[in-house]
């Protein structure tokens, strides 16, 4: 009988097209919102977020306001539990929330290669390490800005030569542009010789991050600038706190999209069953069991929802893959990335919504008084 369902869906093309389109648009938005939520979760959880510490100037938020002595790294390195320290100068074109944020991280090329979870997809480390104004760019921002090797990229007072494009297991990394520390420190306007924005601290396997963070702040208390050290995940969540609230709100938008699909498919299915109630009565006269009539309606609503959901999800994943979207604030960025989990989630939501949307009309089709339905013209 599944053939009957597919033929019904195919031969009521206008209804199918409208319902599928509506479901696809709603699921497209749902998946985009879901990718933002996923991006935030990736940023604040995982090994990189948990086992790395960020030392920042106390009571400062925007990267331009945090100015720590570069030589703090030596003192930090002496603290038990610290494996390595990377002084980083951060420059961003916009400290407020932005969908096209550009963030430069200046650090030692050797340390970047050794400690950051990145892999060049094109270009050379050697050129990056040897050329003063060379930069390697994450593939997300490369996509978004159309950057390729050999390009000169200028923004504000900074002008760099693209020496490589990298990918990373940590999606937010792919929104960054790395330069050498010295290049960024001596950029006009930053006036940061001997200063850095933050120190990134890598821990030994057995170190307790919170204990080490407390010890770092205590050790630097007597220095020129007081520090606040946190796990990288907590640091980024705090930096993006305004955005976190907005993303929490956007989550409701995702639920609203699910509600929209539910309402759309339920309305279409109810109207379809109303229009074809005599057909369902005829099927039962022929010998179709009430439960099977119910399954036919459920299969129809689920098919419509799944097709729409699959199309919307696929469109969203394609847009996320090609668009290189990211949102950021104060130098931290959230990458919107397609993922298998997101695809699976989109399809499961479509399936569940299809079943829920079809339940009431399915019961109607299964319990219709046959004689009354046959009398309808």
């Amino acid at each position: 009988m599944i053939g009957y369902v597919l033929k019904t869906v195919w031969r009521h093309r206008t209804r199918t097209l409208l319902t599928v389109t509506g479901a696809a648009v709603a699921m497209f938005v749902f998946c985009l919102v879901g990718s933002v939520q996923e991006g935030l979760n990736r940023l604040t959880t995982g090994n990189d977020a948990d086992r790395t510490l960020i030392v920042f100037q106390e009571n400062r938020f925007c990267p331009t306001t945090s100015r720590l002595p570069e030589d703090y790294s030596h003192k930090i390195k002496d603290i038990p539990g610290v494996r390595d320290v990377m002084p980083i100068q951060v420059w961003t074109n916009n400290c407020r929330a932005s969908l096209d944020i550009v963030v430069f991280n200046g650090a030692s090329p050797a340390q970047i290669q050794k400690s950051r979870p990145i892999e060049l997809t094109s270009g050379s480390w050697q050129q990056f390490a040897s050329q003063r104004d060379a930069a390697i760019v994450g593939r997300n921002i490369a996509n978004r800005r159309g950057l390729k090797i050999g390009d000169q990229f200028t923004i504000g007072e900074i002008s760099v030569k693209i020496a490589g494009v990298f990918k990373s297991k940590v999606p937010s990394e792919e929104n960054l542009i790395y330069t050498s520390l010295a290049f960024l420190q001596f950029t006009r306007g930053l006036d940061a010789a001997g200063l850095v924005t933050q120190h990134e601290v890598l821990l030994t396997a057995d170190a307790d991050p919170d204990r080490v963070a407390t010890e770092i702040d205590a050790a630097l208390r007597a220095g020129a600038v007081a520090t606040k050290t946190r796990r990288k995940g907590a640091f980024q969540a705090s930096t993006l706190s305004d955005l976190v609230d907005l993303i929490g709100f956007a989550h409701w938008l995702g639920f609203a999209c699910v509600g929209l699909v539910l309402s759309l498919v339920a309305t279409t299915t109810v109207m379809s069953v109303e229009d074809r109630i005599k057909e369902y009565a005829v099927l039962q006269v022929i010998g179709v069991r009430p439960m099977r009539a119910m399954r036919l309606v459920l299969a129809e609503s689920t098919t419509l929802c799944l097709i729409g959901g699959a199309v919307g999800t696929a469109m969203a994943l394609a847009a996320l893959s090609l668009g290189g979207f990211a949102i950021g604030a104060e130098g931290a960025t959230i990458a919107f990335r397609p993922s298998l989990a997101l695809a699976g989630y989109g399809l499961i939501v479509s399936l569940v919504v299809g079943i829920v949307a079809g339940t009431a009309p399915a019961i109607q089709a299964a319990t219709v008084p046959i004689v009354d339905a046959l009398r309808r013209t």
Partner: protein
Amino acid sequence: MALVELRGVFKSFRKGDETITPLDNIDLDIHAGEFVSLMGPSGTGKSTLLNLVSGIDRPDSGTITVDGTEVNKLSRSKLADWRAANLGYIFQTHNLIPVLTAYENVELPTLLLKLSAAQRRQRVELALEAVGLSNRADHYPRQLSGGQEQRVGIARAIVAHPKVVVADEPTGSLDAETSEQVQVLLQRLNKELNITMLMVTHDSNVASIASRQLMLDRGKFLEAIRS
């Protein structure tokens, strides 16, 4: 023993303040291979009786037995199974599924039986051949004339080899010439395939093709016009 037995069948329903009794303590026997027509004025319970025999309606009291199965005691699901295996229903308005071809419409009842694909195909082809529509198998209902649609409806009713075929005004929506063709077809199916038939009609000419004609009025059989 009769194939269809109705004993003391009573059916009434309320319409506003009025109680209507379309069937009042009816007894009826229909033997295997018989062709029974049921006549009577509008609203006298002809279709109600047909619906009770088909198991799509239930009597207030009395028993309806078809080939030894007391159909009025079956659950809705069991009744559906029973209809799939034992009953063919010919509607006045054809009631074909518009999105399915003539072949697919006729095939529908066979999908509910335990048949192989080859057996299904053979049955559908034979049924379409029996009603003279083998060459219209791929046509959709909207591409068929009223008479052809009714013949597809008849093929659908006989394809599962039911024990009983019931027909509710099978020529009611057809012109005279097409009605004549359908009558001949029904008669042929009864005689050649020995299908037991119960047909409701308000047209005495159509009723005359049956081997036994019954007249129903105000819930009772008036007389056997011809047996």
